[in-house]
Protein backbone atom coordinates (compact mmCIF):
# COMPACT_ATOMS: atom_id res chain seq x y z
CA UNK A 1 0.00 0.00 0.00
CA UNK A 2 1.58 3.26 -1.13
CA UNK A 3 0.76 6.74 0.09
CA UNK A 4 -0.08 8.74 -3.00
CA UNK A 5 1.83 11.76 -4.26
CA UNK A 6 1.12 14.88 -2.22
CA UNK A 7 -1.10 13.30 0.40
CA UNK A 8 1.15 13.93 3.40
CA UNK A 9 1.59 17.40 4.89
CA UNK A 10 4.89 19.09 4.06
CA UNK A 11 6.45 18.60 7.51
CA UNK A 12 5.52 14.92 7.60
CA UNK A 13 6.84 14.28 4.11
CA UNK A 14 10.08 15.98 5.12
CA UNK A 15 10.32 14.13 8.43
CA UNK A 16 9.85 10.70 6.88
CA UNK A 17 12.37 11.50 4.18
CA UNK A 18 14.83 12.51 6.90
CA UNK A 19 14.05 9.31 8.79
CA UNK A 20 14.67 7.11 5.75
CA UNK A 21 17.79 8.86 4.48
CA UNK A 22 20.26 7.42 7.03
CA UNK A 23 18.94 3.91 6.39
CA UNK A 24 19.40 4.42 2.67
CA UNK A 25 22.91 5.74 3.19
CA UNK A 26 23.71 2.78 5.41
CA UNK A 27 22.23 0.36 2.88
CA UNK A 28 24.25 1.89 0.06
CA UNK A 29 27.38 1.77 2.15
CA UNK A 30 26.77 -1.87 2.96
CA UNK A 31 26.10 -2.69 -0.71
CA UNK A 32 29.23 -0.83 -1.85
CA UNK A 33 31.29 -2.83 0.61
CA UNK A 34 29.82 -6.07 -0.69
CA UNK A 35 30.49 -4.97 -4.26
CA UNK A 36 34.14 -4.45 -3.55
CA UNK A 37 34.57 -8.11 -2.70
CA UNK A 38 31.81 -9.42 -5.02
CA UNK A 39 31.60 -7.09 -8.01
CA UNK A 40 29.26 -9.49 -9.81
CA UNK A 41 26.57 -8.63 -7.24
CA UNK A 42 26.03 -5.28 -8.95
CA UNK A 43 24.19 -6.85 -11.85
CA UNK A 44 22.45 -9.34 -9.60
CA UNK A 45 20.99 -6.60 -7.40
CA UNK A 46 19.82 -4.73 -10.50
CA UNK A 47 18.18 -7.79 -12.00
CA UNK A 48 16.58 -8.62 -8.65
CA UNK A 49 15.24 -5.09 -8.22
CA UNK A 50 13.82 -5.33 -11.73
CA UNK A 51 12.17 -8.60 -10.80
CA UNK A 52 10.74 -7.15 -7.58
CA UNK A 53 9.39 -4.21 -9.53
CA UNK A 54 7.90 -6.52 -12.13
CA UNK A 55 6.15 -8.57 -9.46
CA UNK A 56 4.76 -5.41 -7.90
CA UNK A 57 3.42 -4.27 -11.25
CA UNK A 58 1.76 -7.56 -12.09
CA UNK A 59 -1.78 -8.50 -11.43
CA UNK A 60 -1.40 -11.71 -9.51
CA UNK A 61 -4.23 -14.04 -8.62
CA UNK A 62 -5.09 -13.60 -4.95
CA UNK A 63 -7.42 -15.36 -2.58
CA UNK A 64 -10.04 -12.66 -2.70
CA UNK A 65 -9.80 -12.50 -6.47
CA UNK A 66 -8.76 -8.89 -6.42
CA UNK A 67 -5.73 -7.73 -8.31
CA UNK A 68 -2.89 -7.09 -6.00
CA UNK A 69 0.61 -5.81 -5.53
CA UNK A 70 2.70 -8.06 -3.36
CA UNK A 71 5.73 -6.23 -2.12
CA UNK A 72 8.19 -9.06 -2.51
CA UNK A 73 10.20 -7.60 0.37
CA UNK A 74 9.92 -10.82 2.31
CA UNK A 75 11.58 -12.87 -0.38
CA UNK A 76 14.21 -10.23 -1.05
CA UNK A 77 15.11 -9.83 2.61
CA UNK A 78 15.50 -13.60 2.99
CA UNK A 79 17.75 -13.79 -0.09
CA UNK A 80 19.91 -10.69 0.26
CA UNK A 81 19.51 -9.57 3.87
CA UNK A 82 17.64 -6.48 5.00
CA UNK A 83 20.49 -3.97 4.44
CA UNK A 84 20.62 -4.55 0.69
CA UNK A 85 16.85 -4.31 0.55
CA UNK A 86 16.88 -0.60 1.47
CA UNK A 87 18.45 0.62 -1.81
CA UNK A 88 16.66 -2.09 -3.78
CA UNK A 89 13.35 -1.14 -2.19
CA UNK A 90 14.10 2.52 -2.80
CA UNK A 91 14.65 1.89 -6.50
CA UNK A 92 11.51 -0.25 -6.74
CA UNK A 93 9.41 2.43 -5.05
CA UNK A 94 10.89 5.19 -7.20
CA UNK A 95 10.10 3.17 -10.31
CA UNK A 96 6.58 2.53 -9.09
CA UNK A 97 6.06 6.24 -8.66
CA UNK A 98 7.54 7.16 -12.02
CA UNK A 99 6.27 4.27 -14.15
CA UNK A 100 2.96 3.41 -12.53
CA UNK A 101 2.00 6.55 -10.55
CA UNK A 102 1.80 4.35 -7.45
CA UNK A 103 3.12 6.37 -4.56
CA UNK A 104 4.97 9.57 -5.35
CA UNK A 105 8.09 11.65 -5.01
CA UNK A 106 7.09 13.73 -1.99
CA UNK A 107 5.84 10.62 -0.22
CA UNK A 108 8.83 8.51 -1.29
CA UNK A 109 10.48 8.89 2.11
CA UNK A 110 7.41 7.67 3.98
CA UNK A 111 6.88 4.77 1.59
CA UNK A 112 10.55 3.79 1.75
CA UNK A 113 10.32 3.77 5.52
CA UNK A 114 7.38 1.36 5.60
CA UNK A 115 8.21 -0.84 2.63
CA UNK A 116 11.98 -0.82 2.27
CA UNK A 117 12.94 -0.53 5.93
CA UNK A 118 10.26 -1.82 8.31
CA UNK A 119 9.00 -4.63 6.02
CA UNK A 120 12.34 -6.26 5.22
CA UNK A 121 13.61 -5.95 8.80
CA UNK A 122 10.45 -7.51 10.24
CA UNK A 123 10.48 -10.28 7.62
CA UNK A 124 14.14 -11.01 8.26
CA UNK A 125 13.74 -10.85 12.03
CA UNK A 126 10.69 -13.12 12.02
CA UNK A 127 12.49 -15.62 9.82
CA UNK A 128 15.54 -15.74 12.10
CA UNK A 129 13.29 -15.99 15.15
CA UNK A 130 11.24 -18.74 13.51
CA UNK A 131 14.37 -20.69 12.71
CA UNK A 132 15.66 -20.21 16.25
CA UNK A 133 12.35 -21.49 17.61
CA UNK A 134 12.67 -24.58 15.46
CA UNK A 135 9.79 -23.92 13.08
CA UNK A 136 9.79 -25.72 9.74
CA UNK A 137 11.26 -23.74 6.88
CA UNK A 138 7.86 -23.37 5.22
CA UNK A 139 6.28 -22.06 8.40
CA UNK A 140 9.11 -19.61 9.06
CA UNK A 141 9.00 -18.36 5.47
CA UNK A 142 5.24 -17.98 5.56
CA UNK A 143 5.31 -16.01 8.80
CA UNK A 144 8.22 -13.87 7.61
CA UNK A 145 6.56 -12.90 4.34
CA UNK A 146 3.11 -12.52 5.85
CA UNK A 147 4.19 -10.48 8.86
CA UNK A 148 6.63 -8.46 6.76
CA UNK A 149 3.74 -7.53 4.53
CA UNK A 150 1.41 -6.77 7.45
CA UNK A 151 4.04 -4.64 9.17
CA UNK A 152 4.37 -2.38 6.13
CA UNK A 153 0.66 -1.83 6.11
CA UNK A 154 0.55 -1.16 9.83
CA UNK A 155 3.40 1.33 9.42
CA UNK A 156 1.57 3.09 6.61
CA UNK A 157 -1.54 3.32 8.77
CA UNK A 158 0.55 4.84 11.55
CA UNK A 159 2.02 7.35 9.13
CA UNK A 160 -1.45 8.36 7.95
CA UNK A 161 -2.79 8.51 11.48
CA UNK A 162 0.06 10.74 12.64
CA UNK A 163 -0.53 13.07 9.72
CA UNK A 164 -4.30 13.19 10.05
CA UNK A 165 -5.45 12.60 13.65
CA UNK A 166 -9.17 12.17 14.15
CA UNK A 167 -10.85 15.34 15.50
CA UNK A 168 -12.45 13.31 18.29
CA UNK A 169 -10.38 10.18 18.89
CA UNK A 170 -7.00 11.59 17.93
CA UNK A 171 -4.17 9.56 16.45
CA UNK A 172 -5.37 6.28 17.93
CA UNK A 173 -8.83 6.39 16.41
CA UNK A 174 -7.38 7.60 13.15
CA UNK A 175 -5.03 4.61 13.14
CA UNK A 176 -8.00 2.27 13.72
CA UNK A 177 -9.87 3.90 10.88
CA UNK A 178 -7.06 3.78 8.34
CA UNK A 179 -5.96 0.35 9.50
CA UNK A 180 -9.51 -0.93 9.33
CA UNK A 181 -10.34 0.35 5.89
CA UNK A 182 -7.17 -0.96 4.26
CA UNK A 183 -7.38 -4.27 6.13
CA UNK A 184 -9.96 -5.42 3.60
CA UNK A 185 -7.36 -5.55 0.89
CA UNK A 186 -4.14 -5.88 2.85
CA UNK A 187 -4.86 -8.86 5.11
CA UNK A 188 -5.83 -11.26 2.31
CA UNK A 189 -2.91 -9.86 0.37
CA UNK A 190 -0.48 -10.59 3.18
CA UNK A 191 -1.76 -14.16 3.39
CA UNK A 192 -1.45 -14.60 -0.38
CA UNK A 193 2.03 -13.21 -0.33
CA UNK A 194 2.94 -15.56 2.49
CA UNK A 195 1.61 -18.59 0.61
CA UNK A 196 3.19 -17.52 -2.63
CA UNK A 197 6.56 -16.93 -0.97
CA UNK A 198 6.46 -20.42 0.55
CA UNK A 199 5.67 -21.94 -2.86
CA UNK A 200 8.42 -19.91 -4.47
CA UNK A 201 11.04 -20.72 -1.85
CA UNK A 202 10.16 -24.41 -1.96
CA UNK A 203 10.33 -24.43 -5.74
CA UNK A 204 13.61 -22.51 -5.71
CA UNK A 205 15.08 -25.00 -3.28
CA UNK A 206 14.68 -27.64 -5.99
CA UNK A 207 16.69 -25.73 -8.55
Amino acid at each position, binding site marked *: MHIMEGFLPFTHALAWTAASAPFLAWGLHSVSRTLRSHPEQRML*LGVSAAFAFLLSALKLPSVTGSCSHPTGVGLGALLFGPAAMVPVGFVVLLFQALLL*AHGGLTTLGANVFSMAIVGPFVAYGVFRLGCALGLTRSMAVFLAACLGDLSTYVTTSVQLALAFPDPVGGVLLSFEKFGGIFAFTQVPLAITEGL*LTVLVVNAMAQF
Partner: protein
Amino acid sequence: MIIERLAYASPWRAVAPSAKAIFAGGAMAAAWLAPSPWMAAGLAALVATVTVAGARIPLRDYLRVAMAPMGFLMLSCLTMLVTVNPSPGAPTWRLATEMLPQVLMIATRAMALCAALLWLVLTTPLGDLLALLRRLRCPAVLADLMAVTYRMQSVLGDAWSDGLTAQRARLGHAGRLQSLRSTAQLISQMAVQCWMRASALQAAADARNFDGTLRFLHAAHPNGRREGAVAAAAAIGLILLAAWGRWA
Protein backbone atom coordinates in the same frame (compact mmCIF):
# COMPACT_ATOMS: atom_id res chain seq x y z
CA MET B 1 3.01 0.16 -18.98
CA ILE B 2 0.88 2.98 -20.22
CA ILE B 3 2.90 5.86 -18.70
CA GLU B 4 6.04 4.66 -20.43
CA ARG B 5 4.26 4.36 -23.77
CA LEU B 6 2.74 7.84 -23.54
CA ALA B 7 6.01 9.42 -22.42
CA TYR B 8 7.89 8.05 -25.41
CA ALA B 9 5.14 9.19 -27.76
CA SER B 10 4.94 12.66 -26.22
CA PRO B 11 5.95 15.51 -28.53
CA TRP B 12 7.79 17.04 -25.56
CA ARG B 13 10.03 14.06 -25.18
CA ALA B 14 12.85 15.87 -27.00
CA VAL B 15 12.75 18.81 -24.55
CA ALA B 16 15.62 18.72 -22.07
CA PRO B 17 14.60 16.58 -19.05
CA SER B 18 16.14 19.18 -16.75
CA ALA B 19 13.72 21.80 -18.07
CA LYS B 20 10.75 19.50 -17.54
CA ALA B 21 11.97 18.69 -14.04
CA ILE B 22 12.27 22.42 -13.25
CA PHE B 23 8.69 23.01 -14.28
CA ALA B 24 7.49 19.98 -12.29
CA GLY B 25 9.43 21.22 -9.26
CA GLY B 26 7.89 24.66 -9.62
CA ALA B 27 4.41 23.21 -9.85
CA MET B 28 5.07 21.13 -6.74
CA ALA B 29 6.32 24.12 -4.79
CA ALA B 30 3.29 26.12 -5.88
CA ALA B 31 1.02 23.28 -4.75
CA TRP B 32 2.60 23.36 -1.27
CA LEU B 33 2.23 27.12 -1.13
CA ALA B 34 -1.33 27.30 -2.42
CA PRO B 35 -3.36 28.85 0.43
CA SER B 36 -6.84 27.66 -0.47
CA PRO B 37 -8.52 24.61 -1.94
CA TRP B 38 -9.61 26.80 -4.85
CA MET B 39 -6.10 27.83 -5.62
CA ALA B 40 -4.85 24.24 -5.33
CA ALA B 41 -7.67 22.92 -7.49
CA GLY B 42 -7.00 25.61 -10.05
CA LEU B 43 -3.33 24.70 -10.06
CA ALA B 44 -4.16 21.00 -10.52
CA ALA B 45 -6.49 21.84 -13.38
CA LEU B 46 -3.90 24.11 -14.99
CA VAL B 47 -1.07 21.57 -14.84
CA ALA B 48 -3.39 18.78 -16.00
CA THR B 49 -4.55 20.91 -18.92
CA VAL B 50 -0.98 21.73 -19.90
CA THR B 51 -0.18 18.02 -19.81
CA VAL B 52 -3.21 16.87 -21.77
CA ALA B 53 -3.28 19.66 -24.32
CA GLY B 54 0.37 20.63 -24.60
CA ALA B 55 1.90 17.18 -24.48
CA ARG B 56 -1.05 15.81 -26.43
CA ILE B 57 -1.88 13.05 -23.97
CA PRO B 58 -5.30 11.57 -24.82
CA LEU B 59 -7.73 12.50 -22.03
CA ARG B 60 -8.86 8.89 -21.64
CA ASP B 61 -5.31 7.73 -21.10
CA TYR B 62 -4.70 10.55 -18.64
CA LEU B 63 -7.73 9.57 -16.59
CA ARG B 64 -6.68 5.93 -16.66
CA VAL B 65 -3.29 6.82 -15.26
CA ALA B 66 -4.79 9.08 -12.62
CA MET B 67 -7.35 6.50 -11.53
CA ALA B 68 -5.13 4.58 -9.06
CA PRO B 69 -4.04 7.60 -6.98
CA MET B 70 -7.56 9.05 -7.13
CA GLY B 71 -8.96 5.82 -5.72
CA PHE B 72 -6.54 6.05 -2.82
CA LEU B 73 -7.43 9.69 -2.34
CA MET B 74 -11.16 9.06 -2.23
CA LEU B 75 -10.87 6.17 0.20
CA SER B 76 -8.56 8.12 2.53
CA CYS B 77 -10.68 11.25 2.46
CA LEU B 78 -13.80 9.27 3.29
CA THR B 79 -11.90 7.72 6.18
CA MET B 80 -11.03 11.16 7.51
CA LEU B 81 -14.60 12.35 7.16
CA VAL B 82 -15.96 9.67 9.47
CA THR B 83 -15.60 9.87 13.24
CA VAL B 84 -17.31 8.66 16.39
CA ASN B 85 -19.70 10.46 18.70
CA PRO B 86 -17.90 11.34 21.89
CA SER B 87 -20.87 10.06 23.94
CA PRO B 88 -20.19 7.32 26.51
CA GLY B 89 -21.25 3.75 25.83
CA ALA B 90 -21.16 2.02 22.44
CA PRO B 91 -19.56 4.41 19.95
CA THR B 92 -21.72 5.48 17.04
CA TRP B 93 -20.26 6.68 13.73
CA ARG B 94 -21.04 10.07 12.30
CA LEU B 95 -19.92 12.36 9.51
CA ALA B 96 -17.18 14.73 10.69
CA THR B 97 -18.39 17.84 8.89
CA GLU B 98 -15.96 19.98 10.86
CA MET B 99 -13.17 18.18 8.98
CA LEU B 100 -14.56 19.14 5.59
CA PRO B 101 -12.42 22.28 4.96
CA GLN B 102 -9.25 20.50 6.03
CA VAL B 103 -10.00 17.40 3.92
CA LEU B 104 -10.81 19.60 0.97
CA MET B 105 -7.44 21.30 1.31
CA ILE B 106 -5.59 17.97 1.60
CA ALA B 107 -7.41 16.52 -1.37
CA THR B 108 -6.88 19.47 -3.70
CA ARG B 109 -3.24 19.82 -2.71
CA ALA B 110 -2.69 16.12 -3.33
CA MET B 111 -4.34 16.50 -6.72
CA ALA B 112 -2.12 19.42 -7.61
CA LEU B 113 1.04 17.57 -6.59
CA CYS B 114 -0.17 14.49 -8.38
CA ALA B 115 -0.80 16.53 -11.53
CA ALA B 116 2.79 17.82 -11.31
CA LEU B 117 4.12 14.28 -11.01
CA LEU B 118 1.99 13.12 -13.93
CA TRP B 119 3.23 16.05 -15.99
CA LEU B 120 6.79 14.92 -15.40
CA VAL B 121 6.34 11.22 -16.05
CA LEU B 122 4.01 11.62 -19.02
CA THR B 123 6.43 13.90 -20.88
CA THR B 124 9.73 12.35 -19.77
CA PRO B 125 10.46 8.65 -20.08
CA LEU B 126 12.09 7.11 -17.04
CA GLY B 127 15.25 6.45 -19.05
CA ASP B 128 15.69 10.20 -19.54
CA LEU B 129 14.99 10.88 -15.86
CA LEU B 130 17.64 8.37 -14.84
CA ALA B 131 20.13 10.09 -17.13
CA LEU B 132 19.22 13.35 -15.41
CA LEU B 133 19.79 11.79 -11.98
CA ARG B 134 23.21 10.60 -13.15
CA ARG B 135 24.07 14.12 -14.25
CA LEU B 136 22.96 15.43 -10.86
CA ARG B 137 25.63 13.19 -9.25
CA CYS B 138 23.35 10.62 -7.73
CA PRO B 139 25.56 8.02 -5.91
CA ALA B 140 27.16 5.72 -8.49
CA VAL B 141 25.95 2.52 -6.86
CA LEU B 142 22.38 3.77 -6.92
CA ALA B 143 22.66 5.03 -10.50
CA ASP B 144 24.05 1.69 -11.70
CA LEU B 145 21.33 -0.15 -9.82
CA MET B 146 18.67 1.97 -11.47
CA ALA B 147 20.16 1.60 -14.94
CA VAL B 148 20.21 -2.18 -14.76
CA THR B 149 16.79 -2.27 -13.13
CA TYR B 150 15.27 -0.14 -15.85
CA ARG B 151 16.65 -2.18 -18.70
CA MET B 152 15.94 -5.51 -17.07
CA GLN B 153 12.38 -4.77 -16.02
CA SER B 154 11.38 -4.74 -19.67
CA VAL B 155 13.42 -7.85 -20.48
CA LEU B 156 11.96 -9.69 -17.51
CA GLY B 157 8.53 -8.38 -18.39
CA ASP B 158 8.80 -9.98 -21.82
CA ALA B 159 10.09 -13.19 -20.30
CA TRP B 160 7.24 -13.16 -17.81
CA SER B 161 4.53 -12.72 -20.41
CA ASP B 162 6.12 -15.37 -22.65
CA GLY B 163 6.24 -17.76 -19.70
CA LEU B 164 2.65 -17.04 -18.82
CA THR B 165 1.60 -17.60 -22.43
CA ALA B 166 3.47 -20.90 -22.52
CA GLN B 167 1.74 -21.96 -19.31
CA ARG B 168 -1.65 -21.01 -20.66
CA ALA B 169 -0.93 -23.03 -23.80
CA ARG B 170 -0.55 -26.05 -21.54
CA LEU B 171 -3.67 -25.23 -19.55
CA GLY B 172 -1.73 -23.93 -16.54
CA HIS B 173 -4.22 -21.20 -15.73
CA ALA B 174 -7.50 -23.01 -16.22
CA GLY B 175 -8.48 -22.70 -12.53
CA ARG B 176 -7.70 -20.39 -9.63
CA LEU B 177 -5.66 -22.89 -7.63
CA GLN B 178 -3.85 -24.05 -10.75
CA SER B 179 -3.16 -20.43 -11.52
CA LEU B 180 -1.64 -19.75 -8.11
CA ARG B 181 0.56 -22.83 -8.42
CA SER B 182 1.64 -21.98 -11.95
CA THR B 183 2.40 -18.41 -10.93
CA ALA B 184 4.57 -19.56 -8.05
CA GLN B 185 6.39 -21.91 -10.41
CA LEU B 186 7.03 -19.12 -12.86
CA ILE B 187 8.22 -16.73 -10.15
CA SER B 188 10.70 -19.22 -8.81
CA GLN B 189 11.97 -20.17 -12.24
CA MET B 190 12.49 -16.52 -13.04
CA ALA B 191 14.09 -15.84 -9.67
CA VAL B 192 16.63 -18.55 -10.43
CA GLN B 193 17.10 -17.07 -13.90
CA CYS B 194 18.06 -13.76 -12.27
CA TRP B 195 21.45 -15.21 -11.38
CA MET B 196 22.12 -16.42 -14.90
CA ARG B 197 21.00 -13.16 -16.44
CA ALA B 198 23.15 -11.21 -14.03
CA SER B 199 26.25 -13.21 -14.91
CA ALA B 200 25.50 -12.89 -18.63
CA LEU B 201 25.24 -9.11 -18.23
CA GLN B 202 28.46 -9.08 -16.26
CA ALA B 203 30.27 -10.99 -19.02
CA ALA B 204 28.84 -8.69 -21.67
CA ALA B 205 29.95 -5.64 -19.69
CA ASP B 206 33.41 -7.10 -19.07
CA ALA B 207 33.77 -7.77 -22.78
CA ARG B 208 33.41 -4.02 -23.30
CA ASN B 209 36.04 -3.14 -20.70
CA PHE B 210 33.67 -2.60 -17.77
CA ASP B 211 35.69 -1.38 -14.80
CA GLY B 212 33.13 -1.12 -12.04
CA THR B 213 31.00 1.87 -13.01
CA LEU B 214 28.40 1.87 -15.75
CA ARG B 215 29.17 4.92 -17.87
CA PHE B 216 26.81 6.20 -20.51
CA LEU B 217 26.83 9.20 -22.75
CA HIS B 218 24.06 11.62 -21.93
CA ALA B 219 21.88 12.87 -24.69
CA ALA B 220 22.77 16.20 -26.19
CA HIS B 221 20.13 18.90 -25.76
CA PRO B 222 21.28 21.79 -27.92
CA ASN B 223 18.36 23.95 -26.79
CA GLY B 224 18.63 22.87 -23.16
CA ARG B 225 19.53 26.33 -21.86
CA ARG B 226 16.64 28.06 -23.57
CA GLU B 227 14.19 25.33 -22.58
CA GLY B 228 15.42 25.50 -19.01
CA ALA B 229 14.89 29.27 -18.96
CA VAL B 230 11.35 28.98 -20.30
CA ALA B 231 10.55 26.24 -17.78
CA ALA B 232 12.05 28.26 -14.94
CA ALA B 233 9.99 31.29 -15.93
CA ALA B 234 6.82 29.20 -15.99
CA ALA B 235 7.72 27.62 -12.65
CA ILE B 236 8.40 31.02 -11.06
CA GLY B 237 5.08 32.22 -12.45
CA LEU B 238 3.24 29.38 -10.74
CA ILE B 239 5.08 29.94 -7.48
CA LEU B 240 4.43 33.69 -7.53
CA LEU B 241 0.75 33.03 -8.20
CA ALA B 242 0.51 30.72 -5.18
CA ALA B 243 2.62 33.01 -2.99
CA TRP B 244 0.53 35.99 -3.95
CA GLY B 245 -2.57 34.07 -2.86
CA ARG B 246 -0.94 33.17 0.43
CA TRP B 247 0.63 36.45 1.50
CA ALA B 248 -1.29 39.10 -0.38
